[in-house]
């Protein structure tokens, strides 16, 4: 399993590199597709089937096709004739490396365990923490028999209802803005 | 060797089977140049129904077609395009020249019309007629199928003989009397003997 995980992570990392470094935009899109599929397999290995399916459905089947649209409708010859450099990639690479090391260091030295929801970390009162932990344990017991989508739904529409709704309002605003911008005469 | 097997075991060659597939799946190109195209369309329509031979899949793209039916007059201006479409077809490919225009220019003896497409393309089967009947095109298709399956038939000269490996039942043979005609003659007191009318 570990070897499989390492191979998969390597594949995803290579695909991510391919997205950034590939000269042809279509190669970028293809490696992005393979990366998405790899991430979906990773989710499957973590028993998060719902997220895996949504990952493929939304990112690979929807958004990436729109990217391909954009690529195909651009003037490919002109793009090929333009001299391209990857000089910008180096400072970005250094920045990402620093960020990665910082987050890794912080994670390595913290007592954060992924089982706890983020809300648990924000609480300071020990009794509150205990109560919440009890409730979570109960819910986990109940969720043991629930299917994966049900568990996702419970988290999404229970613990994180307000952020979820806020995000949808934000998206709606973005959609309206896009329509407004794209319309020639309002 | 064949004696040691039961009689229902058939022996064949792989080539035979592959040629059988090829000849029964001749997809023509959607490609008409003049009035013969109308007859070609009629051939694919309900009454003559070219689909019975597996050839109704008229492909719009030369890449997927097997047989090009040059249906009509090939003008000098169109000739390079016809050749180009032929070149774009993948092997193995065949050509049926339909109508007298493709044989020798037909009625158009002018500077603008190619006097026969033999110099342009290798034509497998010629169908004379102006335009030929849909059945004539079907006959040409059958002849082409014969040629694919038994290439040796194309080398021998046969003057409109019957198809070599297909029984043509109910066909009129040379010198054979048509029953209705004979009946009509006999009602008038005449007789017909070996194709000759004998007045009674």
């Amino acid at each position, binding site marked *: 399993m570990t070897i499989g995980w390492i191979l998969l992570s390597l594949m995803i990392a290579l695909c991510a590199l391919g997205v950034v470094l590939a000269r042809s935009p279509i190669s970028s899109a293809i490696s992005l597709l393979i990366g998405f599929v790899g991430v979906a397999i990773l989710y499957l290995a973590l028993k998060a089937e719902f997220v895996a399916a949504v990952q493929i459905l939304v990112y690979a089947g929807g958004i990436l096709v729109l990217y391909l649209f954009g690529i195909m409708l651009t003037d490919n010859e002109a793009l090929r004739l333009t001299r391209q450099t990857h000089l910008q990639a180096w400072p970005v690479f250094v920045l990402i490396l620093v960020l990665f090391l910082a987050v890794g260091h912080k994670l390595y030295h913290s007592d954060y365990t992924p089982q706890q929801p983020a809300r648990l970390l924000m609480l300071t009162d020990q009794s509150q923490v205990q109560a919440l932990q009890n409730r979570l344990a109960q819910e986990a017991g109940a969720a043991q028999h629930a299917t994966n989508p049900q568990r996702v739904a419970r988290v999404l529409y229970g613990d994180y209802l307000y952020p979820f709704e806020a995000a949808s309002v934000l998206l709606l605003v973005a959609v309206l803005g896009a329509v407004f911008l794209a319309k020639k005469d309002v | 060797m064949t004696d040691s097997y039961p009689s229902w075991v058939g022996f064949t060659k792989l080539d035979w089977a592959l040629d059988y597939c090829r000849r029964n799946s001749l997809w023509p190109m959607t490609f008409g140049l003049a009035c013969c195209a109308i007859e070609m369309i009629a051939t694919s329509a309900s*009454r003559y129904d070219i689909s019975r031979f597996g050839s109704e899949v008229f492909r719009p793209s030369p890449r997927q077609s097997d047989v090009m039916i040059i249906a009509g007059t090939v003008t000098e201006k169109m000739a390079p395009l016809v050749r180009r479409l032929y070149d774009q077809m993948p092997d193995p490919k065949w050509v049926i020249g339909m109508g007298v225009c493709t*044989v*020798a220019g037909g009625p158009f003896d002018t500077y603008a019309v190619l006097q026969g497409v033999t110099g342009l393309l290798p034509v*497998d089967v010629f*169908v*004379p007629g102006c335009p030929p009947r849909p059945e*004539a095109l079907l*006959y040409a298709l059958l002849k082409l199928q014969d040629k694919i399956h038994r290439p040796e038939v194309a080398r021998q000269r046969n003057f409109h003989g019957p198809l070599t490996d297909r029984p043509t039942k*109910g066909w009129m043979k040379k010198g054979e009397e048509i029953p209705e*005609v004979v009946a009509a003659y006999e009602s008038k007191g005449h007789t017909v003997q070996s194709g000759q009318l004998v007045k009674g």
Partner: protein
Amino acid sequence: MPGALNRLVRMVTFPELASGLAVTFKWFRKPKVTEFYPDARPVLPYRTKGRLHVEIETCISCRMCEKACPEDCIKVYPPPKEVFKTDKRPAQFYISLEHCIHCGMCVDPCPTGSIHHSMEFELATYNKDELLFNKETLPYDLAIKHFRQGLLENVEQKSP
């Protein structure tokens, strides 16, 4: 209000699409119109203009057909003069199906009715040369001629 209701019902039930489907289904159930050509002989009209048949025995080498032909696909070679006095049959007779457009213009001027259309349409060849017929290779069928003559008799009998 009933109009609006009607419109709503039409919007939901798509009667146009249903009637279209009904039409195709009607044809699905009907007997088919296809002729099974190689297995069954097609019923051709009486005046089908098939391949030209020439009865060399009755031809008098008058070259009327040659002159009438708009495509110059007929070539008649009359016999030498001495022979012609007694035997008027052509020395050679060419019909080129490479050019023949089956117009029938050669049939009408023929004084002896030696040249006429047949019902033959199976003319496809592998070789272009086979479309040129001469006196020896020109097959013809008297039965067809008689059939056509019988037809003409019938027509004459019908029209007073």
